[in-house]
């Protein structure tokens, strides 16, 4: 094996020999340098391989043949090899990336580049504290040298600020080192550790100075203005190196000197870390320049790493796993993003909209963003999971909360940025050239993230059982993205069909509860995919993300433990985010969806963590035996799930997200996706059924559900946009489901299940139909439609059946739900909540009438004279669903009877009895089948009678109406649709004033304004930054020695 000392030798040798090359030979000299970097990478990689596979022992290397303290010693162990490999790979890729710049600047710049990495390598390996200083300085000077790569005045002034700041910091470090030497008499770290200098009078100050200097090198908030300026102004290639390689080395150095500080250092590091994590991410909120934003994010991530190091005493042997997970995600993703910044070359994040001209780059960007935020399957997901679990196990609730808050804030700006990239207008943006040498490094780090993520997952037993095969299927679909849409559509349908075939039968046998949901998810998925045939072209990116959502949904169903559940939950969130943002005007709505989902997910994560506390298990069963803090845990989980069911207060994302989505996406995210929240709620309530705290929580939940139903339906009545109307209607319908579940009785749960199944069917029917109509007429606004019944009879019938079912009018299946609800409410004794729910149910008529009449009835508009029936590909799934709806209406016992048996396991008090088709409760009775027959026969008889009497009726033209002897002017003025419930609005509109939206906007404004105010500390003046550093040292000194 090649000894680690050769890394230094090669780097130095290369740097010196580069000096002999002439400028003309720049290609050759670049190759020479690249070869050196590659060889350094090879050496570190080979050691890493040896440590991982061959039980290689850690080795010490003493230079010049002496033992310490008389020589400089290097150490090569597993941790060193990991960091070296990471840094050198990034270095190698960075060199490839910087090919043009390095070549242009000539051999001197290449020398500096190699020296920077030599410095970082030695910094990792050295065990000599003064040597550490020297090579830190070399790295700093080299960095400052590289900053000049960008000739702009900003880069130069940033470089100046950088060098004076690092000058001060290294001065402090030097004083500390010499003081340590004074007390310890040695520079060998291993010797110093043994002396416990922290307990020696004066020694503590020496240790403090070293510690604070190393921390300051890591750019803690708020003493980090100099670093931000560098991130912003330096060439992104250099930014990547600083953020990914130098910061990683810095973290390692901190870990290396930490034993000198001893246990008393953890607290202060944790404190500094969390302040940095929160502060930096908060200030990042107001940032609109891409590189500086990346700077804020980098510093935030380093803050998180500091926090993790500071929490070592509580994380125990998991510390390494967590820290590596976060660090690798950060380093690779941040390097990738900086490199992308160099390719896109746009100062402002809005300008990143140009990136989507190259879909590959957009995918890469998405990978990095999701990896940073901590979505599966990236290493940071598993690391954050372990982190939160360990914190909960050690009762560090405040730390847990702060970390989640910080992650959330980071998510806000990252996803806002990503939203701009996907959706902001990009017609006027300049083209950017694509060079292979720039794209390859980015692709490699992205691939690395997936690969490492996979192996990280295997390291956790609970995650190892996750089925990755569907994800591989998605990758294949992604690779086939160049094919036309119908091919991918067919493959996707086949995939889902096979998936259904493999898992659904087993659920039907064993678990009716999960069976229902898996059918909704998978069969619903297949049906909505059929509508996809209506789309021409390639529909790039649609199929992978839709499948991600379905796979996530199924993972939730299949989950046996909390981690698996959360994995599926996050996967589903990610997939649905991409689906939602595909809509034309969806940018803001997708962000709002993502933020609510992320907030919800973090609450769930916190809830899970607290729930498994002290149970030594991650099985879903731990929810059964929550003992401590049950109220808080159940509330956290519940609020988390309620973000997905869009319950009042957490619903504001839904109308826009569902309303603006594509025609076949709206049913996916409405009819299908919302059920994930319902499933989560059911799992939670089943588990905590015996928990005494649940009683008071479900009481509140009941009121919430009823009021949500009211406000959702009332909101729908005042919409002019057909899809938003349906979206508000979903809010209302989910309110009923939540209300039903909250009753915690046999009948209540049956009500909820009935609503779940019904809502799936009729909302899918309605959204598919309206979506298809929208595709034909090109507008969402109902008042711009009208009279389409004669053009689209099939669509009309579908909507008619959908609204009859939704409104709860007998004999269709909606009535099943209403009847059960009445019985459940009366038996439960929730009269007022029940009355509100029924009031809501009647308000549904307002919007349902508006929906069908404004679109299909009334006056046909002139520009729609030639529209055709909706696409056959929409009609097929719609009518399959209608058949299902009809069966459920005529034979409700087919599903409700087995469901009753399931519910009886949890609520054995019974309630609903079946005698053939006759359903009875202690107070009511109802025979669905017979009522359908009676109504049908009667209807046909009366129809026949009317036909006989008016068989000669003459068909007339549109305007042939009673109009006081006048003829109507135009269809637009004759079709009454816009604001038809104005009177109602006047009476009850105050209930749907946007209080809640205003509340969230207010919250958002507050944190943004705070960020805008606080970030003024970064005045841009180098001296202010120095003052920050000095003040920071003083403050930390007093905290450290309080």
């Amino acid at each position, binding site marked *: 094996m090649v000894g680690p000392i050769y890394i230094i030798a090669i780097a130095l040798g290369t740097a010196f020999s580069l000096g002999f090359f002439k400028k003309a030979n720049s290609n050759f000299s670049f190759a020479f340098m690249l070869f050196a970097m590659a060889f350094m990478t090879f050496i570190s990689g080979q050691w890493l391989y040896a440590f991982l596979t061959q039980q290689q022992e850690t080795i010490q290397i003493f230079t010049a043949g002496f033992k310490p303290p008389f020589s400089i010693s290097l150490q090569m162990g597993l941790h060193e090899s990991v960091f070296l490999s990471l840094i050198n790979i990034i270095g190698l890729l960075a060199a490839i990336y910087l090919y043009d710049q390095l070549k242009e600047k000539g051999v001197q710049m290449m020398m500096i580049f190699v020296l920077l990495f030599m410095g970082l390598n030695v910094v990792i390996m050295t065990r000599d504290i003064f040597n550490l200083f020297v090579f830190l300085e070399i790295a700093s000077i080299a960095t400052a040298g590289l900053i000049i790569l960008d000739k702009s005045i900003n880069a130069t002034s940033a470089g100046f600020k950088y060098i004076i700041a690092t000058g001060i910091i290294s001065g402090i470090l030097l004083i500390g080192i010499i003081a340590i030497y004074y007390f310890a008499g040695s520079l060998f770290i291993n010797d110093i550790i043994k002396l416990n200098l922290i307990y020696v009078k004066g020694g503590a100050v020496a240790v403090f100075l070293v510690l604070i200097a190393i921390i300051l090198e890591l750019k803690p908030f708020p003493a980090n203005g100099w670093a931000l300026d560098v991130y912003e102004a330096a060439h992104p290639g250099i930014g990547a190196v600083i953020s990914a390689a130098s910061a990683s080395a810095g973290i390692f150095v901190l870990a290396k000197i930490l034993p000198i500080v001893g246990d008393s250092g953890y607290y202060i590091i944790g404190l500094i870390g969390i302040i940095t994590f929160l502060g930096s991410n908060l200030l990042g909120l107001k940032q609109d320049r891409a590189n500086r934003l990346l700077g804020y994010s980098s510093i935030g991530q380093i803050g998180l790493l500091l926090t993790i190091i500071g929490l070592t005493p509580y994380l125990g042997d998991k510390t390494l796993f967590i820290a590596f997970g976060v660090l690798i995600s950060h380093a690779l993703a941040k390097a990738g993003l900086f490199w992308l910044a160099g390719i896109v070359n746009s100062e402002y994040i809005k300008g990143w909209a140009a990136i989507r001209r190259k879909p590959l780059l957009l995918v890469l960007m998405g990978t990095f963003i999701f990896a940073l935020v901590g979505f599966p399957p990236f290493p940071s997901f598993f690391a954050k999971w372990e982190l939160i679990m360990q914190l909960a196990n050690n009762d560090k609730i405040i730390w847990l909360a702060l970390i989640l808050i910080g992650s959330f804030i980071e998510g806000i700006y990252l996803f806002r940025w990503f939203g701009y990239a996907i959706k902001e207008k990009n017609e006027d943006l300049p083209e950017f050239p694509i060079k292979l040498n720039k794209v390859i490094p980015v692709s490699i780090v992205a691939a690395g993230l997936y690969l490492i993520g996979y192996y990280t997952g295997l390291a956790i037993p609970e995650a190892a059982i996750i089925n990755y095969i569907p994800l591989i299927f998605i990758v294949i679909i992604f690779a086939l993205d160049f094919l036309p849409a119908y091919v991918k559509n067919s493959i996707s349908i086949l995939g889902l069909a096979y998936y259904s075939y493999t898992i659904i039968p087993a659920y039907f046998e064993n678990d009716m509860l999960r069976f229902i949901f898996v059918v909704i998810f998978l069969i619903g998925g297949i049906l909505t995919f059929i509508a996809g045939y209506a789309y021409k072209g390639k529909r790039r990116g649609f199929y992978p993300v839709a499948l991600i959502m379905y796979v996530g949904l199924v993972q939730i169903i299949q989950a046996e433990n909390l981690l698996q559940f959360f994995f599926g939950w996050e996967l589903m969130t990610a997939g649905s985010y991409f689906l939602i943002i595909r809509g034309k005007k969806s940018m803001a709505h997708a962000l709002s969806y993502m933020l609510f989902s992320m907030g919800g997910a973090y609450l769930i994560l916190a809830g899970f963590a607290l729930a498994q506390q002290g149970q030594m298990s991650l099985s879903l069963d731990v929810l059964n035996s929550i003992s401590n803090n049950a109220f808080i845990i159940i509330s956290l989980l519940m609020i988390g799930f309620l973000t997905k069911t869009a319950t009042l207060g957490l619903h504001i994302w839904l109308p826009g997200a569902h309303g603006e989505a594509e025609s076949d996406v709206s049913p996916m995210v409405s009819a299908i996706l919302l059920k994930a929240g319902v499933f989560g709620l059911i799992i939670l309530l089943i588990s905590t059924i015996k928990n005494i705290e649940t009683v008071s929580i479900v009481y509140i939940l009941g009121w919430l559900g009823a009021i949500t139903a009211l406000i959702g339906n009332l909101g729908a009545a005042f919409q002019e946009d057909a899809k938003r109307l349906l979206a508000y209607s979903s809010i209302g319908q989910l309110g009923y489901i939540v209300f039903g579940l909250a009753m915690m009785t046999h009948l209540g749960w049956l009500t909820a299940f009935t609503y779940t199944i019904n809502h799936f069917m009729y909302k899918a029917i309605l959204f598919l139909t309206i979506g298809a109509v929208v595709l034909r007429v090109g507008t969402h606004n109902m008042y711009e439609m009208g009279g389409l019944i004669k053009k689209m009879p099939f669509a009309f019938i579908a909507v008619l059946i959908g609204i009859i079912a939704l409104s709860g009018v*007998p004999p269709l299946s909606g009535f099943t739900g209403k009847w059960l609800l009445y019985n459940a409410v*009366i038996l439960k004794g929730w009269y*007022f909540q029940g009355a509100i729910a029924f009031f809501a149910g009647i308000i549904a008529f307002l919007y349902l009438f508006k929906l*069908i009449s404004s679109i299909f009835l009334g006056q046909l508009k002139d520009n729609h004279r030639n529209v055709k029936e909706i696409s056959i590909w929409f009609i097929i799934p719609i009518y399959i669903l209608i058949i299902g709806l009809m069966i459920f209406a005529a034979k409700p016992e087919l599903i409700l009877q087995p469901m009753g048996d399931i519910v009886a396991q949890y609520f054995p008090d019974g309630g609903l009895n079946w005698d053939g088709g006759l359903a009875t409760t202690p*107070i009511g009775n109802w025979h669905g089948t017979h009522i359908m*027959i009676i109504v049908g026969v009667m209807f046909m008889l009366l129809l026949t009678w009317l036909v006989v009497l*008016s068989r000669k009726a003459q068909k007339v033209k549109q305007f042939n109406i009673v109009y006081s002897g006048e003829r109507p002017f135009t269809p637009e003025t004759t079709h009454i649709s816009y604001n038809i*419930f104005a009177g109602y609005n006047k009476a009850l509109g105050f209930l749907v004033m946007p209080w809640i939206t205003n509340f969230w906007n207010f919250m958002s404004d507050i944190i943004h304004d705070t960020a805008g105010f606080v970030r003024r500390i970064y005045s841009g003046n180098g001296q202010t930054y120095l003052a920050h550093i000095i003040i920071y040292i003083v403050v930390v000194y007093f905290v450290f020695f309080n």
Partner: protein
Amino acid sequence: MNIDFNKLFFTFLGLMIVLNWGLLMSALMRKIGARVAKRYGIPWFQPWVDLVKNYAIRSQITHGVMFYLGPVFRLSGGVGLFLFMPMVFGSDLWTNFSFKGDLILILYFQFFGMLGMALGAGEGGQPHSFIGISRGLSQFTTIEVPMTLAVIAIAVQYQTLSISDIVAAQQGGIMNWTVFTNPFATAAAMLSVLGAFGHSPFNLVKAPNEIPIGPPTEYHGTYLGVLRTNAAILHVVEAVLFMNLFFGGATTWIELIVKSFLIYFWSVFVGMVFPRFRIEQSVAWFLKIPLILGIIAIILL
């Protein structure tokens, strides 16, 4: 389902009784209205004459299928309510198909006709229809609020949702009637019935002066005949519903006729006295005193 033709015959007979009684009631209503306004009014048989005339008209137009189906939905709604309503207590033949469903079915079946009619009128494309429907739906939402509370109150009181059982529980003397055992629920329901019957002050839906008769504006001839038939049936059946729930039901047809007359004319008399509300006024009105009465009824449970 075995078809019992004997029963079907009696059901049909009952329907005819209800229809004719409903037509007579509408004649009485118009007569009373005329006398209050110091006019002579129509002869008592005028509704039959109108009906025959309407059905006999042969020159008709249609605006489309849904327009055509509207009256069918409407009449199905009325007849359906009749079918699911027990008419005469204690008689197996006059209880129709009420054992197939309970009070909830009745409450929701009301919408069947309303919705169908609204859609049919919608296809007519007449702006007045739309305006009438939007007012009707708006008003109906809040009418149902005190009604719902009253229904919950009596369902809890009698521990059943079956109308026959509710009537049974009120037998054995006038003091057993809900109106005495649960006066607040009855009061709330009787206020909401004012809206349900659609007389002044809640007759904005058909407001003859501003939007000539609202939803049915476009309907004429046979269609109008069907609607008239339905109106007659519906008035009686709804009055019977309130009779069953609050006033002890009826054990004979005579009792049914007397009680339904009184219940129906409660709304007619109120209508004679009070002028019409605007829509936002009527919507809000039901959420004031009637709602409070309903809430009291629930609280007193």
